[in-house]
């Protein structure tokens, strides 16, 4: 049986894929071509069986199709079992709860400066000018490097870590009042530190803590 050029339209006709005029032409053709009609009825039978029994015939194909044709999302989903996904989701939720519970706490904590002379710190520091070592007499004036900006300084003097006196000043030096000078004793261990604040009151620079001893008290 010689192949007919209309044969290639059989499948499209059966699957209703032909345009209206093509369909009419093909229909007229199979009324005239017994070869095409015979082949078409065979194909039609095959197609009917496939449509009717496809779910049992193509079990294997369904399976591979699912695996191969799975979208990225499906692949990700199939990466873990539902139980594992549930566990992962609960863990992630717990972690988030913990993080969010602590965020406000972290925000309220002010930065604390535990400054000792050996400490190396990043950020702005204030250079202390004098006294920076042991002195013979009780110093009257404490001086530090002036910042290029308009800042307010907080001067603190300590005795064995306890605050002896503090003062807020605009200048880069402070004169100890008489009553404070009288508190400074010979051989006592003293230290001093300066912190600088912006006009908004935020801490912008800190000096290191410098220790000194006095040979002779007042």
């Amino acid at each position: 049986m010689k192949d007919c050029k209309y044969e290639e339209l059989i499948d499209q006709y059966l699957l209703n894929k032909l345009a209206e005029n093509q369909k009419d032409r093909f229909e007229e053709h199979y009324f005239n071509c017994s070869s095409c009609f015979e082949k078409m009825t065979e194909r039609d039978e095959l197609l009917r069986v496939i449509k009717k029994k496809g779910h049992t015939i193509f079990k294997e194909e369904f399976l591979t199709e699912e695996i191969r044709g799975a979208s990225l999302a499906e692949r990700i989903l199939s990466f873990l079992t539902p139980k594992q996904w549930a566990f992962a989701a609960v863990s992630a939720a717990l972690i988030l709860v913990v993080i969010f519970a602590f965020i406000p706490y972290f925000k309220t904590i002010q930065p604390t400066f535990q400054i000792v002379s050996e400490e190396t710190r990043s950020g702005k520091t204030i250079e202390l000018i004098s006294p920076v070592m042991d002195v013979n007499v009780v110093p009257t004036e404490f001086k530090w490097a002036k910042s290029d900006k308009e800042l307010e300084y907080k001067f603190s003097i300590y005795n064995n870590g306890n605050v002896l006196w503090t003062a807020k000043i605009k200048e880069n030096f402070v004169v100890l009042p008489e009553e404070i000078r009288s508190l400074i004793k010979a051989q006592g261990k003293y230290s001093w530190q300066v912190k600088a604040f912006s006009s908004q009151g935020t801490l912008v620079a800190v000096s290191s803590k410098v220790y000194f001893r006095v040979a002779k008290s007042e």
Partner: protein
Amino acid sequence: MENKKPDVDLEEIFVKYRPVISFRVKKSLGARNPDWEDIVEEVITNAIEKIQKGEFRGESSIGTFIYTITSRRIVDYIRQKGKVLKHAPEPADYPDPQESVENKERVELMAKALRKLKPKYRKVLYLYYYKELSREEVAQKLGISPRRVSERVNYSQKLLKKFLKK
């Protein structure tokens, strides 16, 4: 040329064209349509009457003559039923609910044969007929040429025929 009535074997119309007319009617009206058999009978009767009246003058083939009668009857039927002519009627549903027991057995047998086909053939049938992808789409999916797709479909059909003849 002498204006002579063409020689038409009426028996041929019954035997040869009944399945063709039936196929065309069922495809257009749907196999679920209870009227399809009546329409086929009407078409055959009408064709015989026209031939006997000498309306078939051999200007076209007998196939085209019967095709035209069939198409007109289908159009009339659709018009009578008040359906919109511009749109083709719904294609026949799969499967045919009127199939006989014998036919059901044949379907089972074919399904069994299809299950036994090699995966490369089954895959083509699955994509081409079950999923209704185009020949080119199937070819692309399987990394073969469109021509190879057709070859595999044809070969599957041949194997199936062989199996059914056993």
